[in-house]
């Protein structure tokens, strides 16, 4: 019976630590109703596997550790997923750059149509997902025996910790070549990860320059202990790096507090943040669409309001 088979969750991690989106995707995986195994693929990824084993609800952690999985290139990780697939009823991953790259490869090789960006599990074969940048929601029933899902993690709460699931090593799948790693530029940041942050401060085109973005958005973020985001316009203009982009094609976030500075609120941006619990917008244009989704709006010059806001926050925290 296909529906009694366990679920395999592909962990998002960097070998040394488990990305918090994994715990959120786990909540979605557990909602399928079958036992959940977590696959940690990497090189020297023991620490990430141990972190996965602590997540509540995990029945077993599968650790594929070796040079073949260094940097988690899509080809070898997909080959591993395909090798493991027959034992599973569902294969699940968070909708991260890694999950998005690997899961469709697995799905195609086992002839399954993937359900991307699941925001709700209605039944083990029925899911809600956003289309048209979140301007419509589709409820789909997956008719393939095996389900392949990517999870929009902002829509699920993180599973707790306190478990001690067993860790089992799995052997390498046949090497899948063709791609090799040349290099990586990952910005080291003391700030929380954008996709898991409790507070996000985002800047838009109105910042006017990279210098202003640095001088206005980032100090406010640091005063709040927040992650920094940006609109597409700000990224395209070079004010902020690409991986800060929030929106339909960037990161989709749902923090407790989202502060939009000088962001007009294009539908593609709203698609990435409108599920935030509390939205604050600061913009000089009182007709900006961002105010239609904001709980609290301040109309005015952000170059005056933000420093004042920072002073008030400092006072409030004192």
């Amino acid at each position: 019976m296909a529906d009694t088979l366990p679920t395999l969750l592909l962990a998002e991690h960097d070998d040394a630590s488990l990305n918090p989106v994994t715990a959120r995707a786990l909540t979605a995986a557990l909602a399928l109703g079958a036992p959940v195994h977590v696959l940690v693929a990497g090189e020297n990824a023991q620490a990430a596997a141990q972190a996965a084993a602590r997540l509540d609800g995990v029945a077993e952690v599968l650790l594929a550790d070796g040079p073949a999985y260094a940097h988690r290139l899509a080809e070898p990780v997909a080959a591993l997923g395909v090798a493991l697939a027959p034992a599973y009823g569902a294969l699940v991953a968070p909708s991260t750059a890694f999950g998005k790259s690997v899961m469709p490869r697995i799905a195609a090789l086992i002839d399954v149509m993937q359900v991307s960006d699941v925001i709700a599990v209605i039944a083990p074969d029925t899911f809600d997902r956003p289309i048209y940048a979140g301007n419509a929601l589709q409820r789909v029933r997956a008719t393939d025996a095996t389900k392949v899902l990517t999870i929009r993690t902002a829509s699920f709460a993180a599973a707790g910790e306190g478990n001690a699931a067993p860790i089992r090593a799995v052997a390498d799948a046949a090497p899948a070549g063709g791609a090799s790693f040349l290099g990586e530029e990952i910005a080291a940041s003391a700030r929380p990860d954008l996709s898991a942050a409790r507070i996000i401060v985002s800047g838009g085109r109105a910042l006017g320059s990279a210098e202003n973005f640095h001088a206005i958005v980032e100090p406010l973020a640091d005063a709040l202990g927040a992650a920094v985001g940006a609109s597409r316009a700000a990224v395209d203009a070079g004010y902020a790096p690409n991986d800060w982009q929030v929106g339909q094609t960037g990161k989709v976030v749902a923090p407790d507090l989202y502060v939009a500075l000088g962001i007009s609120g294009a539908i593609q941006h709203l698609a990435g943040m409108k599920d935030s619990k509390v939205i604050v917008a600061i913009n000089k244009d009182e007709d900006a669409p961002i105010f239609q989704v904001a709980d609290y709006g301040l109309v005015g010059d952000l170059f005056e309001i933000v420093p004042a806001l920072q002073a008030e926050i400092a006072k409030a925290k004192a």
Partner: protein
Amino acid sequence: MKILVPVKRVVDYNVKIRVKADGSGVELANIKMSMNPFDEIAVEEALRLKEAGKASEVIAVSIGPVKTDETIRTALAMGADRGIWVKTEEAGIEPLTVAKLLKAIIAAEGPSLVILGKQAIDDDCNQTGQMLAALLGWPQATFASKIVVGEGTVDVTREIDGGLQTLRLALPAVLTTDLRLNEPRYASLPNIMKAKKKPIEEKSAAELGVDVAPRLEILSTSEPSGRTGGIKLASAAELVAHLKTAGVL
């Protein structure tokens, strides 16, 4: 080397879509349609590679019902050499099926590079390129922000979570484009006229040996629960007070 660029006809980027009242889908009648923006970036990149002497021919492919040829014609007006149209009864062919159709076309055409948009802005699936690469057994690089073609290889810088990653792929390979790979050109009037004479070959899914029956059953389409605008405040102090009350500070 040949470059194949699959392009999709979608509701224009600037159109605010409406969900049909009976929940059967999204209103598509009399709506402006355009080439998926990520696919425009893919066409542009292929044309730049041809202009740089790295490619000999750029072939645009699209899959869909009547009027899909308009989207292929757009690619031809940008500068693609010829088109292939897999004509189907319905729009909205699933990515897995699209990947199978493309695989069959690739078997006949033998391109060294396939460049696709990373996702279509209608179904937002982000699957087709990866599925195609898997079915072909080719390496892939998704979310490309820089492409450098070498001898038998291509170096691709990818936008990943947290930064950039650079991969070297052996050709043939599949690439998908991200927003900042390039700025697509507008077709000039003379090129739009010239494009009318460029060939578009029609094919059917049946002759390519692919079953187009969907695997996902769409049960309903609905409006997301809307957010209503809140209140406008007069000062930063007022804002901080509200945020404290809301318990988010």
